[in-house]
């Protein structure tokens, strides 16, 4: 079994070459979705201001969402850089790490770090630093959201300053992908962390292109260029403004109050198309928004009930009603250009089949009635579906808006019938897809369990060959559309809306984290 290695900014991968995203990205006039190959030379210096809907609680390396746009992922990438990240196409891009290879059945991995990298406090980015960070995340006393991932490591051994040997509790051929998508990719300075203690989250020290300058909580974060950063970067300063209201964020971008707005809101992206000075760099992910069911209680412990819901739900009608047709629907689990794409379609809307199933339940004396407690994120979709179901007989759905915290509590305690979620969504299916569908998976809230699915995921984990993984995921998809633990209907797309008259080199890594090291302002 081979591992992977690559030079900074590129990587090689066994198997199929990834296809371009253009068709799936819904590019339209006035919108740019990729770097312009003939862009002028990057200008050194300048400040970029970007806005996001919410600030994280702290800038500790671990935020639970890992290397994702939300909850400070973009800021962490600027402050810490990363051991490795996934490109938007799913390739592993090595950054502070040079390679991660396994020679022992994907159980023992050798993490090789690049020489000469230092944190902004001058201490070295070495194997001991990585060991310190991962041990700290694994420590239950630290209450780290990513502790379960770090606790999958049985032991670590510092072989030399740039080599760390990691032994996993179970084999995992996608260890680099796991690191590249999780918080374990962000490495903080152990010296600074020990010194600062709990306050480290408010004054982090990493090895990224930018250092922490000032944080006005609730307002903005200012990062400035790290003079000790070995890689290339053009901007002098990044300012992050936290603006909760979606409309106001777009208004602020329109008036030049910020240069970039990171959003998943389709209406904002559509409105941005009307602005001649704005461009839209999009990153789509497989998986996405779905309905998932609770297998432990009626009515959705019954496959027929789940099928009825899937037949009753019409993604296109939902998209037309709520988004003006702007959403990227998910007829299949994977994006069309994903190397794991298979034309195994999600159930198609069928009003007659849905009604027949609802009628069957009524005839058995158990008409389908259920409540959905949903956070604000999915409230519109839930209410749309409630209205749609009202056109069917023998079915009734109530919608109760709740806070995100209560929603999560309901999911974790099994106190729900069906729910709307945007998890799993992923560039690479490991580990997000198995977390959602494998028995005991951390986001398998509905307690779905199928030994064939478990066996398929296990098989996927033991191979880094694309063909072998694809076979396994094909098997998962076939069972998923049959068992319907969840029903996917819309892919999540992160939109990086930006002022194209000011910025160039806008690109992304992962699920839409801006590449701060490539972005620059345009010369006058």
């Amino acid at each position, binding site marked *: 079994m081979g591992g992977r290695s690559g030079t900074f900014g590129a990587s090689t991968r066994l198997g199929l070459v990834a296809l371009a995203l253009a068709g799936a990205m819904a590019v339209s006039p006035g919108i740019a979705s990729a770097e312009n190959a003939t862009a002028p030379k990057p200008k050194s210096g300048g400040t970029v201001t970007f806005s996001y809907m919410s600030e994280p609680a702290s800038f500790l390396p671990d935020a*639970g969402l890992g290397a994702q746009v939300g909850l400070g992922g973009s800021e962490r990438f600027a402050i810490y850089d990363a051991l490795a990240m996934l490109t938007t196409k799913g390739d592993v891009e090595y950054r502070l790490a040079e390679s991660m290879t396994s020679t022992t059945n994907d159980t023992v991995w050798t993490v090789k770090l690049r020489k000469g990298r230092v944190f902004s406090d001058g201490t070295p980015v070495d194997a001991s630093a990585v060991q310190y960070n991962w041990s700290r995340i694994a420590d239950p006393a630290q209450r780290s*959201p990513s502790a379960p991932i770090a606790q999958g490591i049985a032991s670590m051994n510092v072989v030399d300053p740039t080599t760390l040997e990691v032994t996993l509790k179970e084999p995992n051929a996608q260890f680099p992908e796991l690191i590249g998508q999780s918080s374990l990719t962000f490495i903080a300075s152990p010296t600074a962390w020990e010194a600062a203690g709990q306050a480290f989250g408010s004054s982090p020290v990493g090895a990224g292109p930018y250092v922490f300058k000032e944080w006005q909580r*609730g*307002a903005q974060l200012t990062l400035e260029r790290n003079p000790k950063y070995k890689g290339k970067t053009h901007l002098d300063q990044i300012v992050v403004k936290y603006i909760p209201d979606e409309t106001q964020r777009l208004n602020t971008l329109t008036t030049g*109050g910020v240069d970039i707005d990171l959003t998943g809101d389709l209406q904002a992206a559509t409105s941005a198309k009307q602005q001649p000075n704005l461009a839209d760099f999009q990153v789509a992910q497989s998986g996405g928004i779905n309905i998932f069911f609770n297998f432990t209680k009626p009515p959705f412990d019954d496959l027929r009930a789940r099928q009825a819901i899937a037949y009753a739900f019409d993604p296109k009608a939902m998209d037309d009603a709520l988004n003006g047709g702007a959403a990227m629907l998910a007829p299949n689990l994977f994006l069309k250009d994903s190397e794991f794409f298979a034309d195994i379609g999600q159930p198609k809307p069928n009003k007659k089949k849905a009604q027949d199933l609802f009628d069957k339940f009524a005839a058995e004396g158990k008409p389908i009635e259920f409540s959905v407690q949903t956070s604000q994120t999915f409230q519109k979709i839930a209410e749309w579906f409630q209205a749609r179901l009202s056109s069917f007989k023998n079915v009734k759905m109530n919608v109760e808006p709740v806070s995100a915290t*209560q929603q999560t509590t309901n*999911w*974790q305690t099994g106190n729900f019938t069906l729910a709307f979620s945007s998890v799993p969504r992923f560039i690479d299916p490991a580990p997000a897809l198995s977390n959602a569908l494998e028995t005991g998976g951390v986001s398998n809230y509905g307690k779905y369990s199928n030994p064939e699915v478990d066996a398929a995921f296990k098989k996927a984990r033991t191979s880094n060959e694309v063909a072998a993984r694809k076979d396994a995921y094909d098997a998962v998809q076939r069972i998923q559309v049959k068992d319907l633990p969840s029903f996917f209907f819309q892919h999540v797309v992160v939109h990086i809306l930006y002022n194209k008259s000011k910025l160039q080199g806008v690109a992304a890594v992962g699920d839409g984290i801006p590449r701060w090291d490539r972005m620059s302002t345009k010369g006058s």
Partner: protein
Amino acid sequence: MPRLIARRLAHIVLVLLVVSFALTFLVNLTPGDPAYSILGEQATDEQVAQVHKDLHLDDSVPSRYGRWLSDIGEGNFGTSYVTKRPVMDAITEALPATAELVLLTILLSLAVAIPIGVYTAYRPDSRFDRFWVLVSSLFVSLPSFVVALVLVYIFALLLQNFPIHFPVTGWERLTDSPGENLWYITLPVIALSLQQIPQFARLLRADMIATLHEDYILAARSKGVSTRRILFRHALRPSSFSLVTLAGLNLGHLIGGAVIIETLFALPGIGSLTVNSVLSKDIAVVQGVVMLVAIVYVVVNTLVDVTYGYLDPRVRVRKA
């Protein structure tokens, strides 16, 4: 006097105790588990149990309240479950934005409402009075976020290329740049003031109309005292009791109630801090913020009582 002060202090302490216990009880009734705010959606049962143990979340409400009271006695307002920072740090960081927003709103509202209230009381049923009734009804009925978005549309978007325009969102500390600070806070203050001004002006108008019918006003007119002096020297002060009471109540209300404006304009204030803490069940922060608001209400109430004595010396004499 010492007895008065002691009674006052005892009253304040009792109010704070009742408010804090009621708050602790009510927040614990809200659904949701703060452990998931800390750990995220993919928390394992073991992690959740550990957080419950560390933060005493499984203890009874009276037990947790007692522990919190004991910490308060030592000057420790606790630590945020989510950010792990001292609660007082979170509050003192958020307070300047809200304090500035609220104070400027009240000052601007009074500065505009008092002349309008006085004039419409002096000239009831005039053309201006009837026009003002229409305008004030409009502003009172419009939700603050609608007013805010209209202001943003006009003064930030439409006028963005004009020399005089305002930013859509943002915040700068007063100590860092007073000019920028005022520039950012202008639209939020106007948005809030447009709801306060009609209330203040109407209240003052009603009280002044009654005052202007008093015999001593007639006597002052008969003596040839100027209209301006009559209105502002003789009639305004005794007519201001209700206005002062309302301004005091609104000041306390705005501290927690300006959350919509703070959210729209991205101001890092107490309102936003409170809402985010309630939603994530960060009970420690919610307790701290509500205690702050309660203290502000009590202090403002006391100041209002003192102001009565200034406005109407008869109150001082009666008390004496």
